[in-house]
């Protein structure tokens, strides 16, 4: 038997409803997939961005703000921590490496971050894709996304970059706060990290201090870059990133620097708390989208049930012409299941596109590379929905199956 002609006839009879029904289902499914995949991708990307920040030490303030500003480079004024801690950490056996993170200047919308060359190269794990790391004051290494060429010279401006402000307004703002006389030369470019640091310009911490009239942190002007900082008074920094030698050291350092006017915490731990909160929100969203799906599917099943009722005479005629009850059942079921299944598959594709677009938007706004991955769980979820839809599609089919032919022909 071939129920296809009847299915085609039924779908053609639906006219625009045959397009709108799968589209509505697709939107409902897509919202669920987009929310779920986007949240997963965001969680993964944000965790990856924090990989190199084992332990953060800062002045007492909001830990969340310190993470947002230090790891995700979201501009905010945060209090400084005593620069002398850098030397204490440099001499601490429990510390494998420590680096200051200082910000407050910008160039063409890119934040200028003062740190050590060692941290710029992620303590040996990252080599520049072009050029080299900075080795003296006045040199800079840029992230992959920074549109400055190697050898280009720039003057930083005071203030954090105002993301998304008009280019002209930004240029005017930078021009009025320019650190005249300060020049940096781009000597290297880092490979893509997939984090907001791709849009950062990294310069020696000493240069940042000097730019702001705080000296260079050393007792001599021509001292080598990096720790130890032996100036009588080492300038403060917004944050210090520490790489402990061992897990026990990490906990000991965190305990130590939670006292004495500093805060210390593991960004990963804070992210776990954040994800837990986000997870609750996600659960609410998932339940809301699931309810949304149920409503749409039920409405569609009711619509198909009503349509099958209206077509009762058509199916009775087919029965009178010789179609078996199974033929009618198959035609009605496949027609309804087709609409629902197309909606689900279209939803999978639309959900993927929506999540990808949202990822691009997040990347554009935060620099965080959100790699959306439509994986097995999403495909399995959609296959499950198709299975449910197929069962729902049986409702109108069974309705026609049970109606006596003679009665329907009248």
């Amino acid at each position: 038997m071939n129920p296809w002609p009847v299915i085609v006839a039924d779908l053609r009879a639906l006219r625009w409803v045959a397009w709108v029904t799968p589209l509505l289902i697709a939107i409902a499914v897509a919202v669920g997939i987009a929310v779920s995949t986007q949240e997963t991708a965001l969680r993964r990307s944000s965790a990856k961005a924090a990989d190199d920040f084992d332990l953060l030490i800062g002045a007492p303030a909001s830990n969340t703000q310190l993470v947002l500003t230090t790891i995700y480079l979201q501009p905010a004024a945060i209090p400084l921590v005593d620069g002398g801690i850098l030397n204490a950490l440099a001499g601490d056996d429990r510390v494998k490496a420590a680096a200051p993170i200082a910000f407050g200047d910008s160039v063409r919308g890119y934040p200028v971050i003062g740190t050590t060359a060692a941290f710029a190269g992620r303590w040996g794990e990252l080599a520049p894709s072009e050029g080299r790391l900075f080795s003296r004051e006045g040199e800079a290494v840029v992230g992959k996304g920074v549109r400055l060429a190697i050898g280009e010279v720039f003057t930083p401006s005071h203030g954090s970059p105002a993301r998304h402000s008009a280019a002209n307004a930004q240029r005017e703002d930078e021009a009025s706060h320019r650190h005249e006389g300060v020049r940096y030369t781009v000597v290297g470019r880092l490979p893509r990290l997939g984090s907001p640091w791709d849009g950062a310009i990294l310069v020696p911490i000493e240069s940042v201090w000097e730019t702001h009239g705080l000296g260079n942190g050393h007792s001599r002007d021509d001292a080598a870059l990096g720790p130890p900082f032996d100036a009588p008074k080492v300038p403060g920094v917004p944050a210090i990133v520490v790489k402990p030698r061992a897990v026990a050291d990490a906990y000991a350092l965190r305990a130590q620097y939670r006292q004495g006017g500093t805060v210390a915490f593991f960004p990963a731990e804070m992210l776990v708390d954040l994800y837990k909160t986000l997870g609750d929100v996600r659960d609410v969203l998932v339940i809301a989208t699931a309810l949304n799906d149920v409503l749409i599917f039920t409405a569609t099943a009711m619509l198909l049930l009503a349509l099958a009722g209206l077509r009762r005479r058509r199916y009775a005629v087919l029965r009178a012409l010789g179609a078996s009850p199974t033929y009618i059942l198959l035609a009605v079921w496949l027609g309804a299941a087709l609409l629902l299944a197309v909606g689900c598959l279209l939803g999978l594709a639309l959900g993927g596109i929506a999540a990808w677009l949202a990822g691009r938007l997040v990347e554009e706004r935060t620099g965080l590379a959100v790699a959306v991955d439509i994986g097995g769980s999403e495909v399995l979820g959609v296959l499950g929905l198709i299975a449910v839809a197929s069962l729902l599609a049986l409702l109108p089919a069974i309705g026609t199956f049970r109606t006596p032919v003679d009665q329907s022909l009248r």
Partner: protein
Amino acid sequence: MVERAEGSRPARRILDRISLAVEPGAIVAITGPSGAGKTTLLHAVAGLLQPNAGAVSWGDLDLTALSQTTRDRWRRDTVGLVFQDFQLLPELDVIENILLPIRFDHWRTPRDLVGRAAMLASRVGLDQRALRAGALSRGEQQRLAIARALMRGPQLLLADEPTASLDADNSARVIDLLIECTRESQASVLLVSHDAQLLGRASQVYRLTAGRLEVDSAGRA
């Protein structure tokens, strides 16, 4: 005997002690007032409903003793049906409509049957085969319905008011077609009609009144 219950009202006797024989190749017409049971009689003959008492036989085969599945199969292989309001699938083209009864048991339509469908379309004067049924005139739609009924080469053609919704010209054409096609295939015809032109071409005319069948005064039974 056929009784029908409607809602909570007691069952009403629709057909009562009817005796009707249709000879091979005969064209038998049933006329009568609305609600007399003409369509019910056609449905009983087609095996679409089971009489409460009595029997419907096709040769030696007692249709009332068959299971529904066997009766369905018998109807599919033996009976062609033409409805008053055509009952085509307006969204399908001419050939797809004619081929519809073939789709009930073939996934791929054999080439010779596609050829037969094209032949039948020509036979009923429908040359615009790619046209959807919904785009045809009423006369063309009824001719298409006849072609569909003839597709499986039925031995019995049942037609319910086949000319009721047609104008005089189309009515005459459909009557000619019904008679010619069934004569060619040696099929018997049992039709329900009020059309004097059609009744005049029948070999036997019966009048059904209040469930009772009588030879029509103008008939030739």
